[in-house]
């Protein structure tokens, strides 16, 4: 359905990328600005987590379990010194400080989002370029991709995680696999239109080998659409990771991730909703920021697509 639009928009986006004032255009787009600011905030939280008044997010303290946000106490540091400490977001059912866990949780979400986006774009780009350019491969590759896309993404990820066991690496791969076919299709549709362009025919007729053609003529046309697609992949990866952790089949429960914190808070949710509320707000805000960034990039880089949605 959207193939001709994607193809057209790809060409326009490539042209847009070369226009001067690109950065200024992006900076003037409220979605891009909001998305970038919130994302940078989360990145800073993740990077500076140990210095933001947090304590060890895994340290269990049964005496101080299930405390409401704002509970004050004295804390004995490992050095033996006593200091005043406030559980800003309360504690969970094992007495772990929720604020520390939520702040540290930003790390996993961002890592998963960025790594999944990078891998699925890289792998999808290679497969898509080959499939679009090597005719005999195309049929086989597209049948495989159709098959993969027919399995709902969450189920595919659940199936893979259940076999590979829980862990950061397995979760990342399991989330990446269902994302790849979408990237392949996008790249392939761009390649199929570009290969008919006069400048590509000219390059072929003067005997340019396949690899330089792909690299010089086809690849640049994929950059803008892939950037947009990459942000959407990132958002869906963050969501899926939290979801797998929440269902108890993702990253091991000791690791503070937003999904794990919520999973832990499920049992006593009716009495202590803060265990689900705080990580939920951070999670939703991060995904919203990535989605808005994607929308803004699409509006700026892909004007034709922007009109449609």
């Amino acid at each position, binding site marked *: *359905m959207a193939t001709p639009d994607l193809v057209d928009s790809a060409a326009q986006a490539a042209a847009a990328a070369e226009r001067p004032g690109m950065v200024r255009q992006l900076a003037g787009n409220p979605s891009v600005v909001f998305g970038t600011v919130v994302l940078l905030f989360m990145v800073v939280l993740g990077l500076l987590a140990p210095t933001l008044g947090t304590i060890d997010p895994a340290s269990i303290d049964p005496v101080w379990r299930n405390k409401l946000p704002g509970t004050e106490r004295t804390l004995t540091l490992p050095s033996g010194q006593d200091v005043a400490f406030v559980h800003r977001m309360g504690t969970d059912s094992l007495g772990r400080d929720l604020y520390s866990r939520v702040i540290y949780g930003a790390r996993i979400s961002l890592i998963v989002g960025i790594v999944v986006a990078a891998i699925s774009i890289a792998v999808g780009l290679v497969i898509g370029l080959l499939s679009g350019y090597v005719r005999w491969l195309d049929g086989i590759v597209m*049948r*495989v991709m*159709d*098959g*993969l896309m*027919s*399995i*709902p*993404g*969450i*189920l*595919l990820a*659940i*199936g*893979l*995680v*259940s*076999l*590979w*066991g829980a862990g950061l690496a397995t979760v990342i791969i399991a989330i990446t696999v269902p994302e790849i076919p979408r990237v392949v299709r996008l790249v392939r549709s761009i390649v199929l239109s570009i290969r008919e362009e006069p400048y590509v025919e000219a390059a072929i007729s003067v005997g340019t080998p396949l690899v330089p053609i792909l690299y010089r003529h086809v690849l640049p046309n994929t950059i803008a659409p892939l950037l947009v697609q990459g942000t959407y992949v990132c*958002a869906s990866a963050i*969501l899926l990771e*939290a*979801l797998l952790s*929440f*269902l*108890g*089949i993702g990253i091991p429960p000791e690791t503070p991730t937003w999904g794990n914190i*919520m999973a832990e808070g499920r049992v006593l*949710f*009716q009495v202590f*909703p803060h265990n*689900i*509320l705080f990580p*939920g707000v951070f*999670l*939703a805000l991060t*995904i*919203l920021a990535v*989605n*808005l960034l994607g*929308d803004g990039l699409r509006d700026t880089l892909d004007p034709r697509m922007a009109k*449609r*949605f």
Partner: protein
Amino acid sequence: MIAFVARRLLATIPVLVMVALFVFLMLRLTPGDPAAIIAGDNATPIQIEEIRERLGLNDPLPTQLAIWAGKLLQGDLGESFFFKKKVTELILQRVEPTLALAASTMIVTLLVAVPLGVIAAYRQGGWIDRAVMGFSVAGFSIPVFVLGYLLIYVFAVELKWFPVQGYKSISAGLWPFLHRLILPSLTLSVIYIALIARITRASVIDVLGEDYIRTARAKGLTNRAVLVKHALRNAAVPIVTIIGIGIALLIGGVVVTESVYNIPGLGRLTVDAVLGRDYPTIQAVILVFSFVYVLINLLIDLSYTLLDPRIRY
């Protein structure tokens, strides 16, 4: 027409075969020993051997595939490790709540999303339009489980309008059934509404620029007639296409929503199966959901000729 239906049916077969092949290979191509993974960390070698035997992992790969495919064609999805039952039986027991949840979500979505999308398109740039677009971005960003707990907290725990969790079969009476279904289907429909309202708006906007809309207005039809009879009818194909593609979203959402609301359906079965390392069940559920997804989209493709008489095959 008949030739088209036949061709479309035939084209679906390779997709189904591919899905089945993936599900089959998922277990077999796992690095390491899948039997040991399924058995868990504390398993004895004898237990591992037993699992390997039950899954038929000792045979060569082509033999395994032949046996597995043969059983699949007879509707035999194997036996659950955890529940000690035929998987087909297990799935049939769990299908009602999932169907109820999916159907009620679909109804809520269509009742809300299509009118919203049409109004937003008609008043493009107005406050309703901006609200609908804002909602659709937000709807995509709030994870289903976060929203689920939020709704439970506000409407069940605080306001006490609904029971907190659980499911009552329709055989227990219509009201108890619906009463427990309202919150879950509202939760699940938000993301779906976000998707459908967006597409409805976009395709109605496209259509509103057509000449026949101007003609319809010129001959003095009311706005309602123009929008419903001319615009929406012509925008139906992309909307229905997205409804079909969105089924994948719905299936994923069912898994999560059933966990949040403690609904004993296929989604809960999936999660329980993963936690119980019940591989035959996981395999079967993935297969069933994917087949349903492919077949619904097949039906939607076939419905295009009904929706738009201009489409001929």
